[in-house]
């Protein structure tokens, strides 16, 4: 590296970056200047946040979490927030050559100049990109090697509920909703700086460790037994909590963010605006980490949603609004909301959409309403399991007849393409469970052709390998091996293609089993896995979520070499089923879910017993509400949307 060129703190790097941009792919992703982006003066604020989404700009820009925190922080007069994304290898090479460090896209400031670097992990496959960004930013990879001149590296997002594999690389992790937590962290950092940085970095981290929801790994020691399993995780200071709980934002209407969503010039993976209509889910799907760790359900009101849609459209000019949540059709006012939004935007060429929904005829009605006078191209359902039996195991119960009837209704209503999401490798699964997907798809096409009177109907089966996640009833399950997944995908493909007259109307999209195994290692790994991540990065691993960059061989070789000293291996972390008494790496991190309840639910899964949603049936004592002092917040409110003068009318 030639680059030891110094720059003043907060100074723009753009003049040095610009000549490099002429030499790379899609340079627009590095220049910022998005509509609704903000640049504040460096010296006007006490606390500087760099917010990172550890994937390519086109994936990271639409991320709601990052957009929310960006606005919440920039609204504070004493703070600023800028964004940074993973840099593609072509630019990373030039940056190293020319000594240009990791930069923010907003004002092209060096990430190393900021007080904090917040990294949002939606998936564990971003871990190598974290290391790449730290290295490009010239921040020591290991938290223990950092001094007061380096940013505090904060992990957030769903993967932060088990940050142990990256415990060596982050200074802290925030569990749960970030809106209020980032404010508390900003206060702590501002006070510590104002007081002249007493006690240095360790004192700052100790203060942060006392903020609700903040976990500082260095203050916790992990012990291992002769069998390789964890014996205990104990705190090393008595002024930090023994267990760290999660943050929960109550009353979403008080947090209507993002108010002015970012609109990039570059193309992104979501060319639409999103409005989060509720947070949390209590359907109790046993595979779903998001549903488990975001409890309880907190709805935004119909009027709150209406004003966010209106304000967001005015601020962005987007042509489409997605009504986002973990299961949008479950909003208590969804029927009225769909009708009133469709009324409001009729004739304005504004599209409304729901993400994938449960298999339910009502959801077709909803989708019809939202697309009242628009194109009906595709509708997506997520049955997740191929057979009725496996759907009872995962607690996502829908009968085969209902499934076929629902999809047929969609075709009869003019939808031409239905996409069905499935997983394979679920606990207790056999080949037969997966083969039922083929039968189902064939039946759907037959019924669909009949109902629509057209051969022009398509069904796309999208399927990927299941990865057991922490804080779910399946956290004890043995993950299916890559070979098992690939075998089941193969027999499924053969079954679908058995009858070409039907098979040609069925598309099969699948992900092979290998990336899932690595995701499994990173999801349920402990601190020893950090050495694997570091080795993979040193050997060139990055952008592991992209098949053209992912190397399974690099991961398995690194795992074999780095884990053998501990007497464990890749299988130990992935395909091995855990026992009830095993100390799990994340047991000291509290999502509110009672471990005994999770175990009981795991046993009920194995005996194919269902559990009902606590929104409509009595509490089943998962533990979240009493632990966190929270409660379910649902409507209906009885209110309705007021007429507006809308954009483009």
């Amino acid at each position, binding site marked *: 590296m030639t680059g030891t060129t110094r720059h003043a703190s907060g100074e723009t790097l753009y003049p040095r970056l610009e000549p490099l941009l002429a030499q790379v792919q899609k340079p627009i992703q590095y220049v910022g200047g998005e509509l609704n982006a903000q640049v504040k003066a460096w010296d006007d604020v006490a606390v500087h946040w760099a917010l990172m989404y550890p994937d390519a700009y086109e994936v990271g820009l639409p991320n709601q979490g990052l957009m929310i925190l960006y606005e919440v922080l920039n609204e504070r007069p004493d703070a600023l927030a800028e964004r940074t994304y993973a840099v593609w290898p072509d630019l990373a090479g030039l940056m190293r050559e020319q000594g240009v460090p990791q930069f923010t896209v907003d004002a092209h400031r060096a990430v190393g100049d900021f007080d904090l670097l917040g990294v949002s992990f939606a998936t564990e496959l971003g871990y190598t990109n974290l290391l790449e960004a730290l290295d490009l930013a010239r921040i020591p990879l290991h938290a223990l090697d950092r001094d007061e001149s380096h940013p505090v590296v904060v992990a957030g997002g769903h993967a932060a509920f088990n940050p142990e594999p990256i415990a060596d690389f982050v200074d802290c992790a925030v569990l749960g909703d970030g809106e209020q937590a980032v404010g508390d962290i900003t206060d702590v950092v501002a006070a510590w700086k104002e007081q002249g940085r007493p006690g240095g970095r360790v004192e700052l981290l100790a203060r942060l460790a006392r903020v609700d929801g903040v976990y500082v790994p260095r203050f916790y020691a992990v012990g291992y037994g002769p069998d390789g399993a964890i014996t205990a995780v104990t705190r090393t200071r008595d002024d930090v909590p023994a267990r760290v709980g999660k943050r929960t934002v109550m009353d979403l209407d008080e947090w209507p963010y993002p108010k002015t969503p970012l609109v990039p010039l570059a193309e992104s993976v979501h060319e639409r605006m999103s409005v989060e209509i509720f947070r949390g889910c209590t359907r109790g799907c046993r595979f779903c980490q998001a549903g488990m760790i975001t409890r309880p359900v907190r709805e935004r009101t119909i009027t709150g949603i209406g004003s966010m849609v209106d304000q967001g459209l005015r601020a962005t000019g987007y*042509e489409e609004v997605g009504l986002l949540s973990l299961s949008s059709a479950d909003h208590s006012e969804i029927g009225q909301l769909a009708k009133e939004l469709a009324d409001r935007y009729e004739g304005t060429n504004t599209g409304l959409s729901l993400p994938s929904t449960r298999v339910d005829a009502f959801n077709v009605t909803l989708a019809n309403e939202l697309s009242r006078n628009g194109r009906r191209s595709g509708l997506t359902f997520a049955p997740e399991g191929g057979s009725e039996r496996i759907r009872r195991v995962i607690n996502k119960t829908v009968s085969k007849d209902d499934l076929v009837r629902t999809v047929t209704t969609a075709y009869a209503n003019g939808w031409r393409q239905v996409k069905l999401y499935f997983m394979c490798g679920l606990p207790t699964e056999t080949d037969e469970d997966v083969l039922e997907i083929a039968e189902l798809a064939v039946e759907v096409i037959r019924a669909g052709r009949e109902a629509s009177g057209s051969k022009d109907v398509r069904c796309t089966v999208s399927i990927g390998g299941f990865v057991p996640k922490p804080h779910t009833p399946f956290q004890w399950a043995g993950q299916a091996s890559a070979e098992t997944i690939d075998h089941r995908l193969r027999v499924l493909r053969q079954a679908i293609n058995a009858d070409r007259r039907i098979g040609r109307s069925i598309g099969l999209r699948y992900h092979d089993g290998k990336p899932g195994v690595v995701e499994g290692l990173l999801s349920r790994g402990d601190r020893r896995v950090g050495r694997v991540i570091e080795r993979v990065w040193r050997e060139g691993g990055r952008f592991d979520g992209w098949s053209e960059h992912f190397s399974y061989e690099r991961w398995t070789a690194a795992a074999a070499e780095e884990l053998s000293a501990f007497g464990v291996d890749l299988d130990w972390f992935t395909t091995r089923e855990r026992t009830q008494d095993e100390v799990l790496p994340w047991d000291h991190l509290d999502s509110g879910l009672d471990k005994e309840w999770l175990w009981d639910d795991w046993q009920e899964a194995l005996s194919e017993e269902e559990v009902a949603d606590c929104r409509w049936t009595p509490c089943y004592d998962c533990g979240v509400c009493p632990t966190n002092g929270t409660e379910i917040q649902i409507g209906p409110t009885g209110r309705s949307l007021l007429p507006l003068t809308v954009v483009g009318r």
Partner: protein
Amino acid sequence: MARQPEGPPPPPTVQKLRLRYAKRGPLRFASHRDLARALERALRRAQVPMAFSAGFSPHPKISYVGAAPTGAASEAEYVEIGLAERRDPEAVRAALDASLPPGVDVLECVEAAEGGGSLADRIDAARWRVELPGVEPEELAAAVAAFLASDVVTVAKRTKNGLKDVDAREPVASAASAGTAGCAILTMVVRQVTPAVRPDDVLAALAAVADLRPPSPPRAVREAQGRLDDSGIVADPLGPDRAARTRCQGEHAAV
């Protein structure tokens, strides 16, 4: 039975506006597709009453004319939009300019004259200005002289179907060197041909004939587009519309 959109067909175009806009600064790295998306969204934010195509996925009536390449800045990009209601061109220009990110600046807006022909027909050449940091003006002058003295300069050009040899000399109507010590400036007028010869191709030609190799990436700006007349001047493609407008207003005044 295929569904049909309910209700009447969308209202027809009643006014065509022609815009000249610039892409400047960091936004020179925006591609044509990036700019097209930004423009469509800005039209919605600015509440310009666009005319739409019919069908289930209606598109606003926008036609783009020969966009500058990604990485090149421009002072002369052109687009034509169809409106479903009449608007004052200057008001549309101001609203749209305010709605677009800084660096995409709407400079002019005129109403298309009836029967005046298409905008694309009024553009067959572009005037470019290319800054070459680290290159001395004398160096560039020698290279340009060698280039102009050649009948044919073949360069390999990356196209959709792989590398293709093109002659970079023939479309260059004129080229001159200027600038100050440490930063030469190349100005040239290049005719539209297929495949297009762009500043990068001319620079590759200068490397071929005179081994001119700029130490850092050149910065190109398209200064004008239009019809190349016999005197070597690139005419303003909005000129005829502006003239028709003035004439029209003049006739009104006379009545």
